[in-house]
């Protein structure tokens, strides 16, 4: 009975968190897209800063990881397919692994570690320092000024970064792999273009868009859950990372299943 009770209350707790996060997302859309609300310029500035921090400033780390993973994937693929190119399987493996799966999910993980923790920590500090209450007393809606631009910034940044990741992983990875394997560039391009379809790119984009929204909502929600103490902040940052990883994996499999099964 005790185990049942505990399991039940844990499920209910998780479900109510899910409901709260959905509400936060819907409220942020409502507040952010309300044409009559003031502060459009400031909200736009915050969103741009978020894109700069999450997207532009993360290009180096995303680029390096993409390069190394791309090269490893191409070399591994080559070891599986003994022909020196010209095999349709090479292109297919690269598209499935790099474009459909690795690009979106690895970008999301980098963003969770780099920007997700920053968002939850920043909002946590704002809660403890009463900055959120100060915003409210200025008549500024924190959902509109803090949450909405972060959701927009994160989704745009993850979308663009994932595209960047895929390009670097494929073409940069190819350059690196040339140090080890012999694979003519024209053949590589031919294999790739034969395997790559519109839906591969579209599904990758859809995944990134959702990952950006999910990570931003979870991290904002965790930040807002800080109440009184600075010691709560690292706890919520950790929780934000763990929940974001779970959520991204879950959404990844749902989208993959929806489009490819």
């Amino acid at each position: 009975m005790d185990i049942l009770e505990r399991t039940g209350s844990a499920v209910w707790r998780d479900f109510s968190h899910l409901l709260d996060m959905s509400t936060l997302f819907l409220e942020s859309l409502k507040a952010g897209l309300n044409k009559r609300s003031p502060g459009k310029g400031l909200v736009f500035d915050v969103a741009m800063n978020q894109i700069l921090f999450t997207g532009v400033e993360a290009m180096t780390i995303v680029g390096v990881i993409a390069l190394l993973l791309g090269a490893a994937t191409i070399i591994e693929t080559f070891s599986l397919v003994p022909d020196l190119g010209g095999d349709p399987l090479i292109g297919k493996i690269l598209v499935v692994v790099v474009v459909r799966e690795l690009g979106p999910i690895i970008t999301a993980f980098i963003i969770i570690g780099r920007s997700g923790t920053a968002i939850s920590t920043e909002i946590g500090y704002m809660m403890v320092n009463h900055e959120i209450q100060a915003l409210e007393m200025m008549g500024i809606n924190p959902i509109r000024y803090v949450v909405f631009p972060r959701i927009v910034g994160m989704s745009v940044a993850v979308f663009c970064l994932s595209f960047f990741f895929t390009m670097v992983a494929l073409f940069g990875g190819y350059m690196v792999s040339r140090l080890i394997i012999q694979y003519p560039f024209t053949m590589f391009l031919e294999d790739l273009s034969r395997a790559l379809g519109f839906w591969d790119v579209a599904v990758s984009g859809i995944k990134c868009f959702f990952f950006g929204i999910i990570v931003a909502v979870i991290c904002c929600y965790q930040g807002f859950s800080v109440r009184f103490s600075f010691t709560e902040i690292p706890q919520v940052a950790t929780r934000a990372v763990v929940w974001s990883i779970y959520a991204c994996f879950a959404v990844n499999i749902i989208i993959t299943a929806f489009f490819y099964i």
Partner: protein
Amino acid sequence: MPVKLELKDVSFAYEGGEDIVRSASFSVSPGEVLAIVAQVGAGKTTLLKLCAGLLPPVEGSLLVDGNNFWDLSVIGQLELRHRLGFSFQEAALIANINVFDNLALPLRYYGDMAENEIERSINAWLERLNLRPVSKSLPAALSSGVRQKVSFIRTVLLGRDFFFWDNPTQDADAAFTKRIGEEIHEQKKKGVGQILTTQNRELLSRSADRVLTLAGGRISTCAP
């Protein structure tokens, strides 16, 4: 237009804690200055935040000009809060923007003033309190006294219809304490209602029309 504020049977407790405020009822009319005094940790700030609609009461209601604040829509609450000035004890400046941008934030958000007008108005205030040299500094680089001065400017910069002063003289020197007293007096003359929490006896005796004592969660005395 100055507002009348009323608390009716308001009780409040933080999650899992004991009641900090129990059945508090009082009102503040336009032009009146109400002071709340209590020992440290007795719940002055909590009571002030309940009055400002920053904390939802567990029981009871907050009436602003006869309307229940918590029945208003989110937009309605924000529009009303925009008319209320709150000076935070901890200053509560936005950490990632400099002093000037902190002061300009509500003005830019509402877009009521042109940028050069905002600049002129803020610089005049900074000049008056000798804060021009720190206008480009981030709040973390300032002493608590300077932060409180900036918070004071942010509170009074916009014309407000009600003021909440949470221990505004905590880190203030004599000159700034005098300035706060003058501001409270000026607002009173304009007919603006105010609630003040302070440990400063001089400010209390000079500014307050009524003094409310909070002990054990209850308003135990209400001296004139």
